[in-house]
């Protein structure tokens, strides 16, 4: 039976890990290479590194970070941020990523997902979707450009389309919950997980073991968290034990 995955996320800007509330007001939470080694030692099932650099220099630094993390890491590494064309994906893969996360660029040009999956495989093509409750409270809309722009695009429909176009996994972040520490948006997770046949990674708002368990019970194949790990509030190992005690299949 496939084990549920616990995935620490490193938000990296200019080679340093940062994480703030709703991606604004970033706080420095450490060195990505040291953190990656620590999480692997704790038993992380995978790592996600999101490059939130805004400049070409920052992106180059991020690729160097990916290479340095890769040299020591023996678990999967997914890298997102700034992927606008298939060659950007290739640069990250050459640097040492195993999977590539695509967000805004795929919304603007959905064929990008097909191009990347045909070159590198579906298992390598992760669609990152930031979703927020719409004003009418009838569903969720897609948010792009790190929250700067809200679209009228239905997030559930976009998840289905992305999977059809070649995405092999969905990194689903609740924009309403990200940084709030009140738990994942379980309705969003349930709705998207039921609508697609690819794995879904729950993201945005988790701060307790109960939140992670609820995310998995809502249909997620993997649970992502960031700040609860970076500030030493808990360890991957203790979360894994908690999940196992509650009947979740985990890696041992």
């Amino acid at each position, binding site marked *: 039976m*496939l084990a549920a995955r616990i995935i620490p996320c490193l938000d990296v800007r200019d080679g340093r890990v940062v994480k703030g509330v709703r991606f604004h007001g970033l706080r420095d939470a450490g060195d990505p290479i040291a953190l990656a080694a620590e999480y*692997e030692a704790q038993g992380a099932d995978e790592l996600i590194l999101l490059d939130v650099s805004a400049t070409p220099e920052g992106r180059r630094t991020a690729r160097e970070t990916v290479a340095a993390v890769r040299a020591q890491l023996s678990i999967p590494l997914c890298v997102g941020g700034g992927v606008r064309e298939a060659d950007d994906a290739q640069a990250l893969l*050459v640097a040492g*990523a195993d999977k590539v996360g695509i967000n805004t660029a795929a919304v603007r040009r959905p064929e990008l997902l097909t191009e990347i999956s045909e070159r590198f*495989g579906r298992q390598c093509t992760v669609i990152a979707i930031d979703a927020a409750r719409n004003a009418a409270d009838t569903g969720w809309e897609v948010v792009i450009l790190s929250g700067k722009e809200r679209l009228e695009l239905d997030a559930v429909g976009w998840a289905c389309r992305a999977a059809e176009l070649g995405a092999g996994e969905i990194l689903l972040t609740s924009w309403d919950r990200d940084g709030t520490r009140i738990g994942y948006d379980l309705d969003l997770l349930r709705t998207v997980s039921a609508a697609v*046949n*690819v794995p879904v990674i729950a993201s945005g708002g988790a701060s307790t073991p109960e939140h992670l368990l609820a995310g998995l019970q809502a249909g997620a194949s993997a649970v992502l968290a960031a700040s609860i790990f970076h500030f030493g509030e808990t360890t991957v190992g203790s979360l894994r034990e908690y999940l196992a005690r509650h009947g979740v299949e985990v890696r041992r």
Partner: protein
Amino acid sequence: MELDVVVVATGTANLASVLAGLKRSGARPRLARSPAEVLTAPAAVLPGVGALGTAMGKLVRDEMVPALQERIAAGLPTLAVCLGLQLLAEGSEESPGVPGLGVFPGMVTRYPDSVRVPQMGWNKIQADPGCQLLQAGYAYFANSFRLEAAPPGWMAAWCDYAGPFVAALERGPVLACQFHPELSGDFGQALLTRWVERARQGGE
């Protein structure tokens, strides 16, 4: 002494992870430059992610097909990873009409829609009694297609995802893994180290 390993380019990425894993296992990997080198190197690795048809096209263009077939038939130390295992079969539902390397009989098939596809994550494998390299444990998979039956003459490790499938095959120093040993933490690192140690002893 470090083991010299040539890595055959299949035109698809994630090479960095494979190279890093080999280095951590006491090998000195480099990309293969010629078919002759693939035939004669002390150890060779056939990695691969992506589509079978694309990877076979690259192997055909680089004239690597006979070298790989002869090398494995001769029982020389060889490691195939993920798509690499599928390339050893006769073909795959993924790329109809494209012949694989045909090292063993059998076709690769897609997982049914009763499970999430791709299979993405850690799954538990069990090794046949008598396996020299493979052992039980959790391994990391990222695949949509799989081999359902072990070919004659090979020892297998098994896993379950919508039914049993071949997690890995071994025959002497030839090892083929559907999972990614280079991404399978301590479990994968130990397997890579055992394969490198076995490869040092040479062919069958």
